[in-house]
């Protein structure tokens, strides 16, 4: 906490230095300057304060990625509240659960989502004030909403909150093993120390143009948004509906002159295979950053051979710490290399240690669980004190180490090599998936007696998820019915690739589900 300042101060400072530079670009929908973004977020701050939002509150963000959404993030932060972004395409019951769970004081959302959200929320409690935008794109809908609200009752001018370092800046919900998503609480200090680390390592300049590929509820977005806007650079938003279109993305890098790209490896794999990168002018790219899952070496090799000029960084870290280790991959990738690259060394603003099952540090070269401490580590899980306590290892001197659940080996040169998970979480296309959350979703099906979900490595897709089910009677739901049932309850990226009905699930000698047997079948 060498230099405590709230996260939103980055935007205020950049707007003072570079008022007329472009802050955010939304291809085909418009762009906004630093001065205008700062002013629009000030107006939302005033409206939120008039509505009763106070420092320490939470405000939900339920809209597509857009200039409106970025302005809303800063408006919420300036009011002193933490923003809680949700996936606008996720099932409404899940989003209502999240908003209710962290007791949001208001929700900034698109009007098209209101009906189902309100219906779902009514079952849980009293609906908070909703700021309803007619669509989201270009910043116009947010400005119009504020104009209309001002016409009815002008908002008094408020001041930017002086959020102390420990105040929450945002809560990111991730998959929970019990079937309910859990809220990872990140403070201003967590965010600012991470952003400052990025500044030191990647040296962004005002001329840089950052991609914003990750959705706002995903921790990769923290780097995109807050590092770009700290440095007076341009943030180029890539809408989620175009985010998997490899050809479109490759063209966008060329047309928008992207200089810093950041996404999950699966997206870069798609671009390497289907993006026709060689015929695009990607000479503007100077950094390619990836995180969220293991990058299959085969596809990384293809990517590096098509685009040899940028520097490549493998970033690793759970939402609870954001990036906590990093490794620079220097092209070309040798033909004989088959093992994934290391996750690298611990970031300079953090410290790491590798421990065995008795929490004792292991020797270099031995496997153990990676634990992380320092200014980037989360405050805990929202209203889950027990789950929070379990996730930390506390030294005698009070140092709190976050247990990543990832099994690693520290090599002699200080680089860490990822080996696997301690529990039942998997990464799929960069998203965290708790297999238990899928099981909890499927258990709600009236025909399902038992269900077990396993993940097995897959050379092409990284991981393949299979669900095994047994029926209460003789009726079995069809594959299509099961997939549609899942789509109503869990995010699309969690839906299993395969479903298989068994007469009964295999059991171990202690009568537990035999996941090892199922993995062989999966």
């Amino acid at each position, binding site marked *: 906490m060498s230099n405590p300042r709230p996260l939103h101060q980055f935007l205020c400072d950049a707007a003072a230095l570079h008022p007329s530079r472009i802050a955010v670009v939304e291809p085909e929908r418009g762009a906004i300057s630093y001065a205008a973004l700062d002013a629009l977020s000030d107006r939302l701050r005033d409206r939120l304060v008039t509505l009763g939002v106070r420092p320490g509150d939470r405000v939900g963000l339920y809209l597509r990625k857009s200039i409106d959404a970025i302005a809303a993030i800063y408006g919420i932060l300036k009011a002193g509240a933490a923003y809680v972004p949700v996936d606008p395409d996720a099932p409404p019951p899940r989003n209502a659960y999240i908003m209710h769970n962290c007791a949001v004081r208001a929700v900034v959302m698109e009007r098209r989502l209101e009906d189902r959200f309100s219906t779902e929320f009514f079952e849980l409690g009293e609906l908070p004030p909703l700021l309803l935008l007619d669509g989201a794109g270009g910043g116009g809908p947010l400005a119009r909403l504020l104009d209309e609200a001002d016409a009815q009752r002008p908002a008094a001018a408020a001041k930017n909150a002086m959020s102390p370092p420990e105040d929450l800046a945002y809560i990111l919900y991730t998959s929970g093993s019990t079937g309910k998503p859990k809220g990872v609480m990140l403070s201003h200090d967590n965010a600012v120390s991470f952003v400052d680390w990025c500044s030191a390592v990647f040296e962004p300049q005002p001329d840089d143009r950052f991609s914003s590929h990750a959705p706002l509820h995903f921790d990769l977005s923290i780097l995109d948004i807050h590092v770009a806007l700290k440095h007076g650079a341009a943030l180029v938003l890539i809408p989620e509906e*175009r985010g998997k279109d490899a050809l479109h993305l490759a063209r966008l890098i060329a047309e928008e002159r992207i200089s810093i790209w950041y996404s999950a490896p699966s997206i870069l794999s798609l671009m390497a295979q289907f993006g026709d990168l060689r015929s695009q002018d990607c000479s503007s790219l100077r950094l390619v950053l990836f995180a969220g899952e293991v990058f299959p070496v085969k596809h990384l090799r293809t990517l590096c051979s098509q685009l040899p000029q940028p520097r490549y960084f493998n970033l690793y870290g759970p939402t609870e710490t954001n990036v906590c280790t990093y490794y620079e991959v220097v092209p070309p990738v040798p033909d004989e290399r088959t093992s994934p690259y290391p996750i690298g060394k611990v970031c300079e603003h953090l410290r790491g240690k590798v421990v065995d099952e008795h929490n004792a540090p292991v020797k270099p070269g031995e496997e153990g669980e990676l634990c992380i401490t320092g200014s980037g580590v989360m405050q805990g899980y929202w209203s889950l004190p027990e789950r929070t306590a379990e996730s930390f290892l506390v030294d005698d001197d009070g140092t709190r180490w976050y247990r990543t659940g990832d099994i690693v080996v520290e090599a002699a040169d200080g680089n860490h090599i990822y080996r696997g998970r301690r529990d039942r979480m998997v990464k799929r296309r960069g998203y965290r998936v708790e297999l238990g959350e899928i099981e909890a979703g499927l258990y709600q099906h009236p025909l399902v007696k038992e269900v077990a979900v396993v993940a097995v490595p897959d050379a092409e897709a990284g991981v393949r998820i299979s669900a095994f089910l047994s029926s209460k009677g003789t009726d079995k739901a069809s594959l299509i019915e099961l997939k*549609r049932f899942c789509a109503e309850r869990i995010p699309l990226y969690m839906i299993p690739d395969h479903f298989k009905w068994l007469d009964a699930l295999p059991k171990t000698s202690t009568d537990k589900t035999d996941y090892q047997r199922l993995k062989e079948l999966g």
Partner: protein
Amino acid sequence: METSIDFRRIVKDYILEEFLPGENPDELTDDLPLISGGILDSIATLKLVLHFEEQYGIVLEAHEADKEHLDTIRSIASLLTSKAR
């Protein structure tokens, strides 16, 4: 003699074989929401587009390869039919 290609049948067979092995064909109706219903994920959609581009020499514009155009067998078939002409 050139007859028009029955894309509805072809798309349906391809989806059944590739993504829904063992499924009863009657369950896969022409208007079933494929993407929003969780039947096809983004990678599956991409595979489907590439397959038909290669098989029939069709080129889809980026803006056509989206949920609006690809969410049902009926809409995929009509897109392919319009392109194959």
